[in-house]
Every structure is written in structure tokens, then in C-alpha cells.
């Protein structure tokens, strides 16, 4: 086997993004958020620290939340990717988005798409998490504006409304 020849600088992938099929040829080192923003024009996913700390790039791949900056596009052949643009269109995060607005859970908005995906996972689990549990779950997402209390208020509102409606 010719080891040098087998490694590709550019890789072809076919995946779905927000339900739409996408085929592309990408640099092997390009992470998913750059692909979404620069190649597809989907600028709702934000590249913050680009080493997995800040959480601004949190999106959904194959049904699970991931750090978009720590996944290479080359790895995503056959994957299903959802971004904040897609879930805004389907309306699946409407309640969370409304609660973020009502509770002033954002100021500049840079962290918000990642916050929504992280929060949605907690909401989907059901139950009525305590503020402490919400805080722990959201601890991987940084916000430099709000001081977090308003974000926790918004998530708590959605989880308690959801439980009340049962």
C-alpha cells in the first residue's frame, strides 16, 4: 500500500443539511462550521474559540449535539446535519426561541444558536430539571453578555411549561 498516495487533501462528501442533500469537495482539514458558513452560506452557526471550549458552534449531527468546530467535514459523508436555520424553519425550537426573547436571554446573540441546541437537548429529556441541573447542563456554552441568569430563566420556563402541559 502506498501510504502517501491514499491520503487526500480534498475529500468528497454527500450529506444532508437541514433536510436538503448537499454534495461537496472540501479541504480535509476544514471543520463543519467553516463548511456551513463559508461554503453553504449558513452563518447561524458561529465559530468562536475553535477548540471546543466556548460552545458557540454547537449543532446537531445524526441526532446528537456536537461541537461543529471539532468535527471535520470530511468525516460527514452520509451524515444528517441540522443548524439553527433549519430548526427555525421547522419550528421545533419555537418555544425555546420565544422564551429567550421574553426573558432577555441574549444581548449580542453570538452564543444563542449554540445555547439553543444545548438547551433543546435538556428540554427533550423531559422532566423538570432544577436550576442547578440546567446550569450544569449549559456549563459548556459561554455567554459574555447576560450573566447566564436570564438564559436559565428561559430554559426553566420552557421545561416547567412542558411539564405543566402533561
Amino acid at each position, binding site marked *: 500500500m*502506498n501510504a502517501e498516495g491514499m491520503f487526500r*487533501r480534498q475529500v468528497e462528501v454527500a450529506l444532508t443539511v437541514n433536510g436538503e442533500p448537499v454534495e461537496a469537495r472540501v479541504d*480535509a482539514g476544514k*471543520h463543519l462550521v467553516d463548511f456551513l458558513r463559508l461554503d453553504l452560506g449558513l452563518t447561524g452557526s458561529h465559530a468562536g474559540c475553535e*477548540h471546543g471550549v466556548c460552545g458557540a458552534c454547537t449543532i446537531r449531527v445524526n441526532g446528537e449535539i456536537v461541537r461543529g*468546530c471539532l468535527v*471535520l467535514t470530511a*468525516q460527514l*459523508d452520509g451524515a444528517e446535519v441540522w443548524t439553527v436555520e433549519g430548526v427555525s424553519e421547522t419550528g421545533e425550537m419555537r418555544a425555546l426561541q420565544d422564551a429567550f426573547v421574553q426573558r432577555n436571554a441574549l444581548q449580542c446573540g453570538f452564543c444563542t444558536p449554540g445555547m439553543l441546541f444545548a438547551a433543546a437537548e435538556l428540554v427533550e429529556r423531559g422532566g423538570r430539571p432544577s436550576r442547578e441541573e440546567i446550569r450544569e447542563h449549559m456549563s459548556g456554552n459561554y455567554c459574555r453578555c447576560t450573566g447566564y441568569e436570564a438564559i436559565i430563566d428561559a430554559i426553566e420556563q420552557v421545561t416547567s411549561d412542558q411539564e405543566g402541559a402533561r
Partner: protein
Amino acid sequence: MKATRVGYWRADSVEAALGALRSAAGSAQLLAGGQSLVASLNLRLADETNLIDINGLTELEGVSDEGDRIRVGALTRHRTLETAPLVASSAPALAEAAVLIAHAAIRTRGTLGGSLAYADPAAELPACMVALEADIVARSADDRRRIPAESFFEGLFQTALAEDEMIEAVEVPKAGPLERQVVLELARRSGDYAMVGLVLRADVEGHALARSRIAYFGLGAVPVLARGAMSALEAGDLDAAVAALAQDLDPPSDLHASAEYRLHLAGVLLRRAVARARAEGGST
């Protein structure tokens, strides 16, 4: 920042991945969950490199019952360790440790094998392997060997793996009926690497702890077994066990904590861990 030039190849079988690893002769590395590797590419800490992506190799993923041990595939995600019933019943320390690793969106990708092969001294899972006396199953193109966890971690980010070997799985002895496992750590912020952490395993009967193993992490280049403290606990003397830590451990000073502070915290964690093991064992 953005990654430097990267070469990529997706392996479609373990044999093909091992063949590629051998023929690359050190110029390629395995891409598992990528939660440290991709970060280091983005930060340009890693030079131009070739990646062998093993994420499609589902035979490396999952937890199985092997009689008196469980086998955990190298590609098993931290999220699976958190949730798998067989882990909860047979090696609960792995589930408890998994929750302490970073954050949910990282645990969905990060893998057991990746964490062990990377061998970060502050990571939880290497210390679990040492405390639970696990074997690391290493495989190359023409060989397979079992490496006891205690001799697997050789130094800072260094393991006993040869250049052409990959971790296939780990084998962890099942916890017996009296066995209690506790994982505790202290970190400045939730999800950060710990300043000090420990994994305690012991058979608990009444107030007595037998067969105890205590592995610390974040206190040296590799997970550290606190042998003096282990034998003091065997003799039933918790105060002596805490005192023995001064000989067992040689913690570093850095910007997160001084050596003296770390040693103090190591004692605090040991007392908490023993109290919890006794409480779970039905004694207080």
C-alpha cells in the same frame, strides 16, 4: 485558527486501518472522536499530518459481557459509558467518570480509546483503568496483546502503544457484590480538567475496606496509585491513609494550584470517597 494542511483517509475495516498505520510509519495518526486531535489541528499544535479516520468501524464500538469481565470497544463514546446498563452494573466508575468529561456536546463524539491513547495526565478514564485493573487490548496488523493499565501509561501523553498499534478495546473486571467504586474530582469550572481527581475501588463490608485501589489523576505525568494510602486503608486507618499521601504523591505546582494545595485536596477527596463508599456499602 484553522488547521494546517491535512491528509485524510477513511478506513473501511480494522485490518485496512492497521495496514495503513503500519505503512505510514509514523507519518499518520488515527482519528477517533477527534475532540482533542481536531482541536490541536485547529490550534496548529499538530504539524501537517495524515489522518486515518476510524469512525466508520462500528465493530470497535460498544460494551459486551465476557463472563467475569466487560469488554468496552475503543470507539465507544463517552455518552455510551454514561448510559449503558452493563457499565452501570459492572464498572460504575466509568459511568461516573464519563459525566465529568467536558460537556454533553463533546461526550457524544469523544471515545474511550482516544482518551487512553492520548493519555492526558488530568483525564479521568486512564485513572479508572488503573484503579479497576483493566487490560488494554492493543492490536497491530499481525499481533494482538493485552497490556495491564498500570504499565500502559508511560509518561506525559506517552503510552506503551507501538507506532503501528491501535487500541481495540479494554477489558475491565466486573465489580463484585461488595465492591464500591467512587470517582471524585475538583475543577475550577464544571467540565474543565481537574486540579485533582481520584478513583477509589474497594470491597466494603461494614466499616472495613478490603482490596482497595486508589488512583489519582491530575497529579503527575500518569495516573498515580496511592500505595501507602491503600495499605493504610486496608488496616482500617483513614487518618494514616491521608497522611501517607504525602509519600505517595508528588503533585506539580502550576497556575491552577500549588503542590501543597493539591496534596491537601487529595486528602479531602480521599476522605469524601471513603465516606461515600462506606455509606453505599450500608455503613456510616
